[in-house]
C-alpha cells in the first residue's frame, strides 16, 4: 500500500498546522467515504489528519436562537437531537434517510459535507473521469447515467452530490463554518458546493487547508414547517434518485418564507431560488406550487436516460409543499 502519515489532532490549530505540514494531506472524519476511496485508489493522501477528537462534538443553542453544530457531531446524534427534531425536522429526516444505521453512527457533519460523488466512473480508476483525473474525459456522459445530473451539469462532468444532509442544510439557510491558514469564515450551505463547469475536480468552495469546524443553523421556532422527502430504489441504504428539502412559512395566507432544495439532481444541492421567489407573497395553492416548480425545473437538461428525474423531483416537491402548507389554503 502507499504509506501515509497519520496525525491525530487535539485542537483545530493542531489540525490545520498538521495539514499544512503534510502536503497532500486529507482530514479524516468518520472515514465512511474517504477510506473506501483510498481502498479503490481514488484517494491516495500523503497524510491523514484525524479530526474526530477535536472538541467540535457539541450541538449548542446560541443566545440569538441559532444552533451551532460541531463538525464532528455524528450523523445519528444530530438526527436524534431534540432541538433538531423539534425545529429543523427536514434536517433530522434527511440525516435518517441517508446511508445505514452503522454508517450514520460513524459519519460526521463535516465529513458528510465533503463526501464525494458516487458516480461509478469516478470510483473506477480504469475509466475516464474529469473529476478524478482532469482532462481524461467523462465516461458517464454517453455511458450509464440514470443516476446523474439534470441541472447545472457541464460537458466535463454530470456527477451528482450524494448527500441528503447537505440538501436540508441548503434549504434551511445554514452556513458552513471554516477555519484555515487565513483565519475563519463562513459560507452559505447552498453555495458551499460548486457546479462542475470546467473544474469538476473541485467539489466545494473550501480552500486548501481549510477545515470545516461546524454548521450554523439560523434561529427557528418550534413548528416552523420543514420536511425532507427522498425517492430511491430501495427503502433503505440507497442514494436518492431525487430528493427535496422544503421550509415553508405561511402567514396571513401568503408564503412568507420558502426554502426549497433538491438533491440528486445536480453537482450540488440545488437551491430552487426561482421557485422560492415565485412563491414569496403568493397564496400557498397547488397552482402556485406547480407554477413555481415549473419555473425552476424549466432549466433542467436531462441526459439520454434520466429524464424521469425531472417529473420525479417536481412531484415529490409538490407533495412536500402541499403537506407543509396550512390545510385550508391548498
Amino acid at each position, binding site marked *: 500500500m502507499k504509506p501515509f502519515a497519520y496525525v491525530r489532532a487535539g485542537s483545530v490549530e493542531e489540525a490545520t498546522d498538521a495539514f499544512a505540514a503534510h502536503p497532500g494531506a486529507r482530514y479524516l472524519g468518520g472515514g465512511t467515504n474517504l477510506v473506501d476511496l483510498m481502498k479503490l485508489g481514488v484517494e491516495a493522501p500523503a497524510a491523514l489528519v484525524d479530526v474526530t477528537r477535536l472538541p467540535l462534538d457539541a450541538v449548542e443553542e446560541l443566545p440569538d436562537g441559532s444552533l451551532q453544530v460541531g463538525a464532528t457531531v455524528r450523523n445519528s446524534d444530530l438526527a436524534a437531537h431534540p432541538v433538531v427534531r423539534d425545529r429543523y425536522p427536514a434536517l433530522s429526516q434527511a440525516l435518517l434517510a441517508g446511508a*445505514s444505521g452503522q454508517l450514520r453512527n460513524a459519519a460526521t457533519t463535516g465529513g458528510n459535507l465533503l463526501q464525494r460523488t458516487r458516480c*461509478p466512473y469516478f470510483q473506477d480508476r480504469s475509466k475516464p473521469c474529469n473529476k478524478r483525473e482532469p482532462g481524461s474525459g467523462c465516461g458517464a456522459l*454517453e455511458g450509464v447515467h440514470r443516476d446523474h445530473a439534470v441541472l447545472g451539469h457541464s460537458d466535463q462532468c454530470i456527477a451528482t452530490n450524494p448527500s441528503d444532509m447537505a440538501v436540508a442544510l441548503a434549504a434551511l439557510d445554514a452556513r458552513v463554518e471554516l477555519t484555515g491558514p487565513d483565519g475563519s469564515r463562513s459560507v452559505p450551505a447552498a453555495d458551499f458546493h460548486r457546479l462542475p463547469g470546467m473544474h469538476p475536480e473541485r467539489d466545494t468552495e473550501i480552500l486548501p487547508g481549510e477545515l470545516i469546524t461546524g454548521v450554523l443553523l439560523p434561529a427557528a421556532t418550534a413548528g416552523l414547517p420543514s420536511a425532507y422527502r427522498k425517492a430511491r430504489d430501495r427503502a433503505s*441504504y440507497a442514494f436518492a434518485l431525487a430528493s427535496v428539502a422544503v421550509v415553508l412559512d405561511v402567514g396571513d395566507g401568503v408564503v412568507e418564507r420558502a426554502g426549497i432544495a433538491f438533491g440528486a439532481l445536480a453537482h450540488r444541492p440545488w437551491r430552487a431560488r426561482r421557485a422560492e421567489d415565485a412563491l414569496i407573497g403568493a397564496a400557498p395553492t397547488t397552482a402556485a406550487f406547480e407554477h413555481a416548480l415549473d419555473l425552476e425545473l424549466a432549466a433542467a437538461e436531462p441526459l439520454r436516460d434520466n429524464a*424521469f428525474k425531472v417529473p420525479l423531483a417536481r412531484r415529490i416537491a409538490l*407533495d412536500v409543499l402541499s403537506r407543509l402548507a396550512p390545510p385550508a389554503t391548498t
Partner: protein
Amino acid sequence: MTATETVLGAPAERREGREKVTGTARYAAEYDSADRAHAWPVPATVARGRVIAVDAAAALALPGVLAVLTHENAPRLGDPDDPVLAVLQNPRVPHRGWFVALVVAETLEAARAGAGAVRVTYETEGADVTLTASHPEAYVPDSANGGFPAVTEKGDPDGAFASSAARLDVGYTVPPLHNHPMEPHAGTARWEGDRLTVYSSSQGTSAVRAELARLFGLPEDRITVRSEHVGGGFGSKGTPRPEVVLAAMAARETGRPVTLALPRRYLPAVVGHRAPTLHRLRLGADADGRLTSLTHEVTTYTSRVKEFVEQAAVPARVMYAAPTMRTLHRVAALDVPTPSWMRAPGECPGMYALESAMDELAVEVGVDPVELRIRNEPETEPESGKPFSSRSLVECLRDGARRFGWERRDPRPRSGEEGPLLIGTGVASATYPVLVGPGVASARALPGGDFLVRVNATDIGTGARTVLAQIAADALGAPLDAVRVEIADSDIGFGSVAGGSSGTASWGSAVHEACARLSGMLAGRSEPLPEEGLVAEADTSGKADAESPYARHAFGAHFAEVAVDTVSGEVRVTRLLGVFAAGRILNARTARSQFIGGMTMGLGMALTEDSTMDPAFGDFTQSDLASYHVPAHADVVAPEAYWVEEADDHLNPMGSKGIGEIGIVGTAAAVGNAVHHATGIRFRELPLTPDRVLTGLLEHGHPAGMLGV
C-alpha cells in the same frame, strides 16, 4: 413420543450457529499461518483484445511483493472441464475483468499495491456486449444448461394459437443478476511436496478437487479440499472459480501458503452471474382460459469463453396442460463475463415470464388468476407424459389463497387506492425439479453411545449439517445430540454439490443408508463395542441418482401485496406469502429460512436488483453492494412461508424434495402481477424501479387526483 417421531421435521437449531455469531467459524480466507502470503489479481481493463506486454518491474520493486504471475510466466495448467479456470494461460482477453496477472505479497496491502503497479499493455479489438432479441449472432444451441434439449415442440402451436379464442403475445426482459454472497470467493492453498491442501469457499469440495487434479496434473488422492463454513453461494460457488486455481498456482510458485480473497468489485466479472433473458410468450386459450397453445422462446447471451445457456424455457415443459407447445432457447456469444448458475437457474427467470403471461391471460379472459392456473392443471407432465410422483400445486394455490384472504380481492385493476398509494395483489406459481446426486457416507457407533457420521456435504448457510444429523438420528433411533456430523472435506469421499436443491436428498440418502445399516448391525449385538467403534458405510452411486419413471418436482404458490406510490413511482411489497409443497419437510426452522430467503431474493429481482452492462466499457456498472441493490431489511416486511406436507414414496428414504431454490421461483411474477393489479399497467421489464414505474404512470395518464397532485 419416540425419538424418531420428534427428530425428523423438528425445528432443530443450526449446529454451527454459535460459532458463526461469535466469529469463531473459520472461512476459507481465515486459515492463517506464520508464512502465509496474500494474492491480489489484476483485471483486464479492455472489453476484448490481447495482452501484448506486462511490465511487472514497478510491482516487484515494492516492499513485500513476492511474485507477479502473468500468462508469460505462470505454470502451464492441464485442461479444465470449465474453460473459465484456464487462468493466465494465454494473452487473450475475452471480457473486461478477466484476470491478466496475479500479485503475491507478504501482506494483503502489499499485494493490492503491487496489483496497482502492474502495467499491462493491450491490443484492443472491437467488443460487442449488447444483447438484443434479434442479435444476428444468436443461434439455437444443442442443449441448454442442465443438458435439457434447447427446443421442444408438441403438436402445432402456431396453428392452435392462430385459431384460439384468446391470444396473448408478449415479451419480458430480465436483466443480468448477481449472486453476491456475503462471503466473497476465497481460497487458501498450501503445498507440502506434491500434496495440495486447499480451503475453498465452495459449494462442493469434490468438484473442486477434480478440477485441481486436472489442472495441476495430480491424482485426486494428493489433493484435499475443505469448505467447513461457506458464507453463501447461490450457485456462484457451485463450480470451482478462478480464485482457487490462482491460490494454488501462487502457492506452488512461491512455496508459501497463499490466500486469495476476491474483492467485492471483481466478483461480477469472474464468478458467474445470471445471464439476462429476453422472453417471448405466446399463449392461446379458449374462452374459459384453458390453454390451447403455449410458446416460450428465450434469447440470452453467453461469453466467448464457453457456452452457458440459461434454461429459462424449461419450466414451461412442466407447468400447464397445453395440448400444443413450443419451447426454444437462443444464445449469442458476446464479449461479456461468463454467466453461470444462480439460484434456480432456468426456473427463476422462466417462471417470471410464464407466470406474468398467465396473469395477463387471466385478465384477458376474465378468469381469476388462481382459478386459471387450476383449470390448466395437467394430469401428467406435459412434455414427457410421465406421471408426477406428487404434485400439489393446486393445494398450494388454494391454501395460499385462503391464508392470504384472496377471496376478498376486487379483481378490477386499479381498484385499491389509499391516498397517493395504489394497492394491488398478485399470485404466481412456483416449480423446481427434484435433483439428486450419488455419494458416500459412513456412520460409526462409538462405545460411549455417541455416533459419528461423515459425509462430504457442504453447508453454505442452509443448515445442511443440522438436517443431516436429524436424518442420521432418525435412522439410528438415537437422540439428536448423540450424533456428531463431519462434512465438507474431500478426504471423506465423493460428495455432490450443494446446488440444484439436491444436497439434502443426495447426502441424506447416503447418510440414511449408512445409518440404517449400522442400526441393523447394532440390533443383534449384545457384546460391548470395540474401542474404535463399529462402522457402516454406504455408496449410493447408481441408486440415489437412478432415473425415475416419475416426473418429480416441487411446486408452490406466491401471493404478494404491493403499494405503488403514485407520487414517486416507488413500489413496496407490503405482504409476501408463499406456500410450498416439497415432500416431507425435514427441519421446520431451516426450511422456513430457505423459503423466505428465496422469496426475499425474488423480491429483490422484482423491485431493486438491477445490473447494467456498460456498452462502452463492457462491464457491469453496479459492482458493489451500495449500487447493486439487494433488498434491505426495510424492504422486506414479514414474509410468510408455509408448506403442504406431501407423502411421496418415489423420492428418497426421507421423502423430501429440495427447498433451496423454489422460494425464488415465481416471486417476481407475483410482485409484478400485483403491480399490474394496483396500477392497471403491465410492466414487462425488471426491476420495477421508480424510474420505470413513474414513467409508466405518467405515460398512462393517471388522472391528476389519483396521483396526489
